[in-house]
């Protein structure tokens, strides 16, 4: 007998990043009941982990947090965090999502987010939310504006010492919690599963992640964030305030050898944005961007690029041949200077940031029959005129799930996905 809990909604949104939140809010505002399924302990996706956004340099958190809060408090939206999607099927007019609720090891109805468990936990591990540049506890809330404000216990690093249970004022801790399966039935689904970055240790020429002071762009986002690991820009090997910082573009995209032949679309602009932020916090630092070509396609992007040049950020058209450890913990770059007749040159920097490629976060294989494109992102049936329509009727997509795009396009597309899903429910149900 199947005794799994069954819940009914109008739309199930897979992924609680900015695309999923915007889609859910737009549908919720039209009166549709929406479920957001999120794998992490908090909604907000990658955007809530960014420092600022280009080209306006608005605070990313200031844009994302109100959306997170709006979704969390919306009468028509229900959040399901720490959930694994096992299957997503479409049969006749019904979408069925089979989900596993992963345990937080506490009762979410009792937890008041007071962090007493975190303060008293004796286990310190690397904090992945801060790019592994500082520590967190085994019992923790991911970050200060996480939604929901509920703690979780990282069971793989929990010593079961019992301290958190002793200090919890609401008796919320439950070390014995088990995963729980449930089913959501809906009329439509929207896939907003976002992206991941190519691994930093992929390329032999780039030191395979073993060279000190070579970091990823997402680590730099955390360094630049107001609540970052150091609360200022320092190099990770020894806390030195870097005098010279380099950005390597196309470090994981436009590279057939890595299987990522496409352009990741946002790297040029976020590298320029990070340089601008660094020039504010470290006015005397030399900032260099090693690039193949600058792709400034969006509204105001070209001006943003020109402003960066006017501010003294150096752009070196080049192809990086190798990265190695330099003297005094610096990073040595060997490159082909394309505007100097292709001559080989070497330069050392205190800190090097890799603009890695964007790849899909979610692989539907074995979970959902939705078609993938040759780049492995979700295939859009009509990419020019209706980019949110997928190979399955009643199943839509938005944001980076269907291919790299910036926040502006992601939010616009999310509105379109909500409109398509709303129309579908109106006409076919």
């Amino acid at each position: 007998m199947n005794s799994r809990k069954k819940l009914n909604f109008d739309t199930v949104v897979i992924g609680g990043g900015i695309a999923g939140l915007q889609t859910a809010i737009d549908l919720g505002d039209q009166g549709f009941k929406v479920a957001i399924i999120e794998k992490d302990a908090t909604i907000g996706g990658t955007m809530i982990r960014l420092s600022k956004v280009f080209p306006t340099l608005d605070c990313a958190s200031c844009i994302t947090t109100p959306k997170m809060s709006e979704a969390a408090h919306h009468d028509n939206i229900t959040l399901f965090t720490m959930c694994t999607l096992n299957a997503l099927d479409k049969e006749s007019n019904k979408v069925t999502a089979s989900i596993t609720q992963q345990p937080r090891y506490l009762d979410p109805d009792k937890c008041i987010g007071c962090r007493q468990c975190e303060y008293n936990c004796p286990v310190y591990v690397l904090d992945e939310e801060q790019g592994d540049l500082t520590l967190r506890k085994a019992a923790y809330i991911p970050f200060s504006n996480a939604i929901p404000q509920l703690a979780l216990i990282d069971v793989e690093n929990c010593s079961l010492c019992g301290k958190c249970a002793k200090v919890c004022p609401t008796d919320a801790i439950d070390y014995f919690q088990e995963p729980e399966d449930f089913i959501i039935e809906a009329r439509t689904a929207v896939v907003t599963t976002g992206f991941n970055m190519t691994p930093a240790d992929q390329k032999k020429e780039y030191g395979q992640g073993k060279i000190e002071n070579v970091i990823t762009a997402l680590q730099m986002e955390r360094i630049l964030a107001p609540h970052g690991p150091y609360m200022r820009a320092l190099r990770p090997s020894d806390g030195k305030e870097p005098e010279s910082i380099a950005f390597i573009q196309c470090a994981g995209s436009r590279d057939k050898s890595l299987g990522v032949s496409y352009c990741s679309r946002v790297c040029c602009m976020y590298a320029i944005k990070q340089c601008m932020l660094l020039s504010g916090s470290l006015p005397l630092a030399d900032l260099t961007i090693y690039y193949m070509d600058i792709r400034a396609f969006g509204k105001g992007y070209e001006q943003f690029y020109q402003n960066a040049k006017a501010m003294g950020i150096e752009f070196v058209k080049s192809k990086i041949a190798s990265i190695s450890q330099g003297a005094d913990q610096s990073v040595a770059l060997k490159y082909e200077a394309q505007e100097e007749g292709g001559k080989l040159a070497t330069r050392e920097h205190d800190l090097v940031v890799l603009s890695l490629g964007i790849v899909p976060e979610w692989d539907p294989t074995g979970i959902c029959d939705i078609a993938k494109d040759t780049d492995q992102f979700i295939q859009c049936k009509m990419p020019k005129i209706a980019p949110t329509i997928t190979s399955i009727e009643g199943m839509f997509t938005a944001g980076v799930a269907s291919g790299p795009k910036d926040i502006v396009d992601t939010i616009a597309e999310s509105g379109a996905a909500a409109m398509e899903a709303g129309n579908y429910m109106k006409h076919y149900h």
Partner: protein
Amino acid sequence: MKDKNNKEKLKSLRKQREAFVKNAREHIKISTRLFKKIKAEIKDKAMTIPEIAKAIEEPSSQVLIYVSGLKKFGMAVEKEKDGDYFKYQLVAKN
């Protein structure tokens, strides 16, 4: 601790999650040792990361992670700059 997490039940759970518990205890051991060494150095005077690393003979990258952890949990503060490096000191109550 309330009944649901009682001692007997926890004991059997510890056995069930033996590998995780061992891993966590290893983390506690390493962090306690490092924190103790770092705290001893910066208790009475502010020091830079390379100075602490040299004094306790640990890699400076590791020292930075632990000092930033001390800062995050309110146990250390950033002080004045010395050349290219900031100094850190333990807050009085620690």
